[in-house]
């Protein structure tokens, strides 16, 4: 039997925790989602402690797990760093240093070209997001190439299209379509999130795929954006959060694990013979 593909929505605000785990499971099943990431917004240095408290709260909620509530395994955390005038690069670095080991995903909202270039090269940042009215100017061909080279993901929040008037929607669509075309040409990776502020902002993968096809993506590309990219990002970052992780492709292993691996290999070789 073919294994069901896992689909994640990597950006939902904290209202989702008001559901009891069983109902959350029902809702996610109904929406064909296997996991979500809860957003914690941060825009000043003073908020670090608040965010840490929120992260702890969600972690406690996740760890009060019993076998009947597998949904908690699919809840991840996403810190969204929003650039404000008061937030200087040194402050962003401090936020990253403090919060990176505590969370699965770090997103940064790039308001300027300088911050975009810096964020692309920083290994602690996973997702880049852009304000809808600047996305066309910020994502040029060279930025798209850099995003591809540094294996970063670009976020496409659905809420940017839903919570605005039809007149604004046209200009936002135009801005995004040009930026997405550049990203597509360079084969950069895109992730669609809902950024839902309430249940009204939630959309299922079927809707996201149809929406992407309307933005001139092929069926394969849309499938990759909806299914493969979020799973890949999570896999990579969960590996990094492992205490034994050292560097990309390198982690500490015990002697017993090596022996186990060797015996397994010998067994398979014997079976083949």
């Amino acid at each position, binding site marked *: 039997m073919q294994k069901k593909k896992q689909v994640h929505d990597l950006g939902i605000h904290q209202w989702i925790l008001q559901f*009891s785990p069983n*109902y959350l499971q029902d809702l996610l099943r109904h929406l064909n989602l296997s996991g979500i990431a809860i957003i914690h917004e941060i825009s000043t240095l003073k908020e670090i402690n608040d965010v840490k408290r929120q992260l702890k709260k969600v972690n406690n909620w996740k760890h009060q797990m019993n076998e009947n509530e597998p949904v908690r395994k699919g809840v991840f955390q996403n810190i969204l760093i929003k650039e404000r005038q008061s937030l200087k690069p040194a402050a962003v670095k401090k936020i990253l240093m403090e919060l990176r080991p505590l969370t699965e995903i770090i997103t940064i909202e790039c308001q300027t070209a300088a911050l975009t270039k810096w964020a692309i090269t920083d290994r602690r940042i996973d997702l880049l997001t852009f304000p809808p009215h600047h996305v066309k100017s910020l994502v040029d061909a060279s930025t798209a190439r850099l995003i591809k080279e540094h294996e970063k993901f670009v976020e496409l929040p659905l809420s940017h299209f839903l919570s605005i008037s039809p007149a604004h929607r046209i200009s936002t669509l135009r801005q995004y379509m040009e930026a997405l075309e550049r990203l597509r040409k360079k084969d950069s990776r895109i992730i669609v999130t809902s950024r839902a502020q*309430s249940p009204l902002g939630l959309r299922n993968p079927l*809707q996201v795929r149809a929406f992407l*096809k309307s933005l001139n993506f092929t069926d394969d590309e849309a499938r990759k954006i909806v299914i493969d990219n979020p799973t890949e990002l999570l896999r990579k970052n969960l590996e990094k959060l492992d205490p034994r992780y050292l560097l990309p492709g390198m982690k500490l292993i015990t002697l017993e694990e090596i022996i186990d691996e060797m015996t397994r290999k010998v067994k398979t070789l014997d079976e083949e013979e």
Partner: protein
Amino acid sequence: MLTTARGKERQRYILVHYFLFHVENTNGKQDHPSTLITDKQLWKTISRTHSALHGDIKSALAGLYIMTHDPSCRLFILRTSLQALDDVITSLTMITKINGIPGVMWPFKISGTLKKCKKIMKKSYSQIIRINQQLKKVTKEIATNQASFLEESKER
């Protein structure tokens, strides 16, 4: 136009679940009459969004028609041509208001036959009722939180 061997246009049936944000209970059991949406209101909402997004000609070609509607469960089956299927789902994605009330539409099953679609609709009743109840509770909490936040900001 995609047609069958007999030259008939190929159709698809989409099972859609919708939800309204302002659901006020009059007696704690039934929904307020203004939140019970009719077939015509649903059709108008969908076709308006579809023509705003894709134009009048494409919406005419889509051949939208509501086959079955259960207002109490907030489920309906929408018929469309196979060619316009993706466009119709995009339109359903973009809907944020249903008959002027903030709401959302989630298409969750696509079928080639009405019979199969109705079968799935019957099967999913209990799950949908449970989800609707919980959604009502959560949206009420969100609305009260928003109201208190607005009051606080006004006071400031």
